[in-house]
């Protein structure tokens, strides 16, 4: 290691007088050098178990048969019936599982893409372009976040039934195409991610406004856009209230299909919970690959928001 570093032989950082050292010693390390003890780790383990338990519980019940739940001495090891139960969910003609899965993937992905594009576009305008009324309009955008969904659902339903969209997947995609949160999030990020000189340079070079956005704004927005896409996808995937109202039983999303599952099989929890697990697996996979980004996204949003 030392051989690679271009440091004069025999001279280490410690030999130099403290005031001449190139870098001050790391503050945080100095203060929090001690590793925490067993109490911290055991508390975290308890939290982790609490987080995992419902997942495990659905596996436990979902892999048993209908008598498992009534068994006072039930085993804590998953049984062998998961695939039968899952097949009962998948093959139930009333639930339309595959269609629900496709609808969830399609709508969530489309919503995520659209939200990212339009929010970045609007965020770019708010953060980097000068125009009259921009600060007022941005406040307006933020204020809309406080309006509850319930306030508009009756007319929205009437609107969609007028144009014949009730029961259609478009009815859940269109209202979610761009969100106030997304615009706010991208505005916050782009404000500091792009130096103004870069935009001026592009303008001097004769790039059009939209070209500037495509070549300067979009690439710079990538990290925040990825997080926004993740958030939007998870939210859209888990959304229930509006899809439950506007979609019909023949064309559900996964949460709507799950709600049907309960009314169909209200006695047989092993099938219901197998369905729950089945519908959760896609997001679980997403989380395993992108959970790190999701975590840092939440933490970033909080600091700035």
């Amino acid at each position: 290691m030392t051989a690679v570093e271009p440091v004069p032989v025999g001279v280490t950082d410690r030999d130099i007088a403290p005031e001449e050292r190139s870098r001050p010693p790391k503050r945080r390390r100095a203060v929090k050098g001690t590793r925490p003890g067993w109490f911290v780790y055991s508390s975290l383990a308890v939290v982790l178990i609490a987080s995992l338990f419902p997942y495990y519980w659905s596996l436990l019940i979902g892999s048993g048969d209908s008598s498992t739940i009534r068994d006072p001495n039930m085993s804590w090891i998953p049984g062998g019936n998961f695939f039968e139960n899952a097949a009962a969910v998948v093959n139930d003609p009333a639930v339309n599982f595959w269609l629900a899965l496709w609808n969830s993937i399609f709508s969530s992905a489309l919503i995520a893409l659209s939200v990212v594009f339009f929010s970045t576009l609007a965020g770019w305008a708010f953060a980097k372009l000068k125009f009259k009324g921009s600060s007022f309009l941005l406040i307006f955008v933020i204020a809309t976040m406080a309006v509850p969904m319930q306030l508009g659902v009756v007319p929205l339903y009437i609107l969609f039934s007028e144009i014949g969209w009730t029961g259609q997947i478009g009815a859940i995609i269109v209202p979610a195409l761009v969100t106030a949160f997304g615009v706010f999030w991208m505005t916050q990020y782009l404000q500091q991610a792009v130096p103004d000189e870069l935009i001026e340079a592009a303008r001097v070079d004769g790039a059009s406004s939209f070209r500037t956005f495509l070549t300067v704004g979009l690439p710079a927005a990538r990290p925040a856009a990825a997080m926004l896409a993740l958030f939007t996808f998870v939210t859209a995937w888990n959304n229930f209230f509006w899809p439950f109202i506007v979609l019909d039983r023949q064309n559900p999303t996964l949460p709507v299909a799950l709600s049907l599952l309960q009314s169909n099989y209200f006695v047989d929890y092993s099938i219901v919970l197998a369905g729950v697990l089945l519908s959760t697996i896609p997001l679980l996979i997403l989380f395993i690959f992108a959970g790190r980004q999701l975590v840092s996204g939440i933490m970033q949003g909080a600091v700035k928001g």
Partner: protein
Amino acid sequence: MNPPEVAKPTPPAPKKPRRVGFGPRLSRWDFKFSPYLYISPFFILFFIVGLFPIAFTAVISFMDWDLVRNTGTFIGFDQYAYVLSNPKFWIALRNTFSIFLISSVPQLIFAIFIAAILDQNIRAKTFWRMGVLLPYVMAPVAVALIFSNMFGDQYGIVNTTLQNLGLPAVPWHSNAFASHIAIATMVNFRWTGYNTLILLAAMQAIPRDYYEAATVDGAGKVRQFFSITVPSLRPTLIFVIITSTIGGLQIFDEPRMYDQYGTGGANYQWLTITLWLYDIGWGEWNFGRAAALAWILFIIILAIGVINLFVTQGLVRNEGGRTAMTRAQRRTAARLAKRDVAATKSNKHQTEEAGS
């Protein structure tokens, strides 16, 4: 250096300015009007699916809505009177607030403590953080199904465990308060980790020097937590409280899926406002009443928001309180300052008089 488009002589303004770069004038227009174009998708969509429905909800709430003809007849405040005089509304209001309080208060307390633990210099930070967030990716409907199974009155794991410990089984579905606890548990399961991370972010922004100084002064971990961490979290706490209030008052998924009927229990033990809104609107198909209830809910949320705002201002003022003066001190200081000013004035006066 100049691209060819810019070098071109300015053509007479084209009728359809689709291509940009025809000339400096067009470029100026482009930069002047493009921002509005960029923000327009949000505003257009918001007007169609946000603002227009809100106004329309107000109109419908004064009507007896006919679903077949899709029009209504104006009947004034009758729908509001119906909603407010219905005992179900007051039960739903009670339930909504009860569930909201039982969920948000413990949730915040847990979140702060877990965040404080995660704020230590632990190994495998990302792993623990991800573990905390794991419940957040599960759909509320899925959470509700799993927990309603665990809180089963007859065979639920919770009651089985209670009985194994020699405690009586709790009627999780028939008792109103017990059902609120069960539903609040679902909410807490899903949201505690999310709030933990928000609070953790705020904790990491606290300057470490504060802790260093406190350690030097001999303050222990607990003292440091209550004297440094919690006060510094105030702005973030307020943010979390407001967002969880707005979300909590709209709770629907969990109570809807708590049993297979989805009507809030035989005696409406866990009927919430939004659940009732759904029932009126899409169970009884009475859109006028549903719209009136929606507006009442909105007014409640607004009122809570205003109360939150006042509390926020109080807390923020309080935050500076440690270094700033109390009101009495401020008054005394003001009085002294006034006297000072008066004194200098009269002094000046005197010297001026003496001088002249």
